């Protein structure tokens, strides 16, 4: 008998998240012959739109329609999933701010193993699965193994599997709202507060000089500003620089910051964690300056400079002024 694999489909007001098309390929990697069921939670018209869209990719779509799911509250969705998922289910969830909220507790409530933030499936032999993860912000990879005979919850890192753009399915939409039950949660969603716009709009810049933890201290950011000025660009940054309050949050590139699409991106002292790299779109020319030749940023960069950025930046700025 082939395995039943469930894919949690995220949508924003009826528009599917990119992960929705990636999870089906992760599922196929686990079991080519699996029947992959899309799980779509929400309410009303937006939910119907999302289900119809999901049915172009998945042969079966389970729709769970509840008035209090107009915003996806993981504390409500978790007990509903426990109610509807059959024993032995493989449940795939995107590893994003929703998946992180939902999935660890889901595995406990289903009493099945949990593999978080998977970037690849190495092999499946019977009920044994070996998946690939990363540790230390992507500096090393690991193989992890578990037994999924009784089911499993796996979160899949967005962007790790190719999206299935074929839209070749004409799936059946099954209403599972009644089976999901009426649940209550001790956590209530109130509202979304939008990020404030900063004085500089890094999303519109063609040239970004982006600083990370390797810049060392706040005063050194001046070195990046001088280079940016010489180039005609602006300074952006990675998360640790914002956490340290050296630069405003509006300058942060990454999943929890801004998505940028420059022509040239100069990463200065940035290790290149996936949350950061995910914010760089539009295939820019990427230059990485970092003392650690093994930093993951060198894998996405076009050109690398293995030097201490604090020494190298002034040299580079001078050269720019000289040669421009």
């Amino acid at each position: 008998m082939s395995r039943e694999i469930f894919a949690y489909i995220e949508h924003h007001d009826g528009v599917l998240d990119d992960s929705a098309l990636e999870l089906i390929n992760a599922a196929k990697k686990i079991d080519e012959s699996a029947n992959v069921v899309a799980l779509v939670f929400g309410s009303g018209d937006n939910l119907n739109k999302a289900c119809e869209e999901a049915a172009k990719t998945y042969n079966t779509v389970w729709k769970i329609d509840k008035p209090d799911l107009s915003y996806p509250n993981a504390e409500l969705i978790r007990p509903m999933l426990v109610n509807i998922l059959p024993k032995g289910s493989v449940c795939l969830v995107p590893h994003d701010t929703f998946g992180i909220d939902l999935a660890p507790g889901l595995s406990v409530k289903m009493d099945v193993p949990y593999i978080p933030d998977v970037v690849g499936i190495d092999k499946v032999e019977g009920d044994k699965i070996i998946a690939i993860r990363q540790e230390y912000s992507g500096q090393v990879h690991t193989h992890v193994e578990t037994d999924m005979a009784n089911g499993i919850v796996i979160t899949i890192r967005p962007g790790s599997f190719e999206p299935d753009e074929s839209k070749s399915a004409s799936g059946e939409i099954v209403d599972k709202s009644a089976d999901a039950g009426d649940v209550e949660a001790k956590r209530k969603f109130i509202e979304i507060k939008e990020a404030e716009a900063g004085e500089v709009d890094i999303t519109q810049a063609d040239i970004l000089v982006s600083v990370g933890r390797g810049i060392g201290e706040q005063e050194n950011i001046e070195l990046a500003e001088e280079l940016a000025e010489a180039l005609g660009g602006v300074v952006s940054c990675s998360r640790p620089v914002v956490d340290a309050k050296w630069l405003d949050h509006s300058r942060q590139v990454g999943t929890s910051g801004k998505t940028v699409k420059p022509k040239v991106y100069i990463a200065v002292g940035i290790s290149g964690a996936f949350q950061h790299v995910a914010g760089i779109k539009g295939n820019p020319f990427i230059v990485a300056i970092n003392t650690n030749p093994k930093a993951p940023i060198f894998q996405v960069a076009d050109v690398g400079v293995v030097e201490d950025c604090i020494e190298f930046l002034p040299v580079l700025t001078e050269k720019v002024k000289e040669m421009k």
Partner: protein
Amino acid sequence: MEILVCVKRVPDPAENEIEIKSDGSDIERDDLVYSVNEWDNYAVEEAIQIKDKVGGSVTVVTVGDEESDEVLRREMAMGADKGIHINDEALEETDGLGVAKALKAVVEKGNYDLILTGAQADDGAAQVGGMLAALLDLPYASLVNYIEIVDENTLKIGREIEGGNQEINEIKLPCVLSIQTGINEPRYVGIRGIRKVAGVEIPEMELSDLGLSEDEVAPRVKRLDYFIPEMGEGAEILEGDMEEIAEKLVELLKAKGGIK
């Protein structure tokens, strides 16, 4: 408010390049500089700030070997009142669920209103807080970057979501929250502060003290090895002295529209 904060001793990301042993069994740990997991440090600071506002106490707990004592003392030097050290060989090879089970036993021995963890640690799994909440049947919120006390039973919290937006929720106490970096500015801890707590007794507990068996914490998910994947082409590394590198780079930038 009685607050428990779960902390972990990890290699300091600012101080280390992680290398793998030649047989892939572990990372090279000999020369690593360790510190408290960055996210946990924000969680402890938040707990202390809450205590300063409404009273109560802050307890820090860790699951780890002998050396983990130092991170408990560091967090106590910040202002945590008590430390609990869970140290048992059987926990060395456990997984996130095993750690969560040990922490559950600690929670049940106390009377905590609020339990905080860091949003994630060195393995990037971001799992222990969510598992702990589920084991305890308590409400949970992850990636919390704002906490406001509404009344003695309720918190208003912000979760950091995609795009830097913030998801505002109300959550009932007792609850478990995983804390995101940037929620506050953790205070500096000097040598003098650490000396002050050097003599404080920190109770150590083994599995048997927690009413757990080795079987219960045996890992369901096992790490088989560490490896560096076959690299793609990667970046072209510019060679030469700094002047030469800078010159090559400027030529490239000019060609790619990187100079206006």
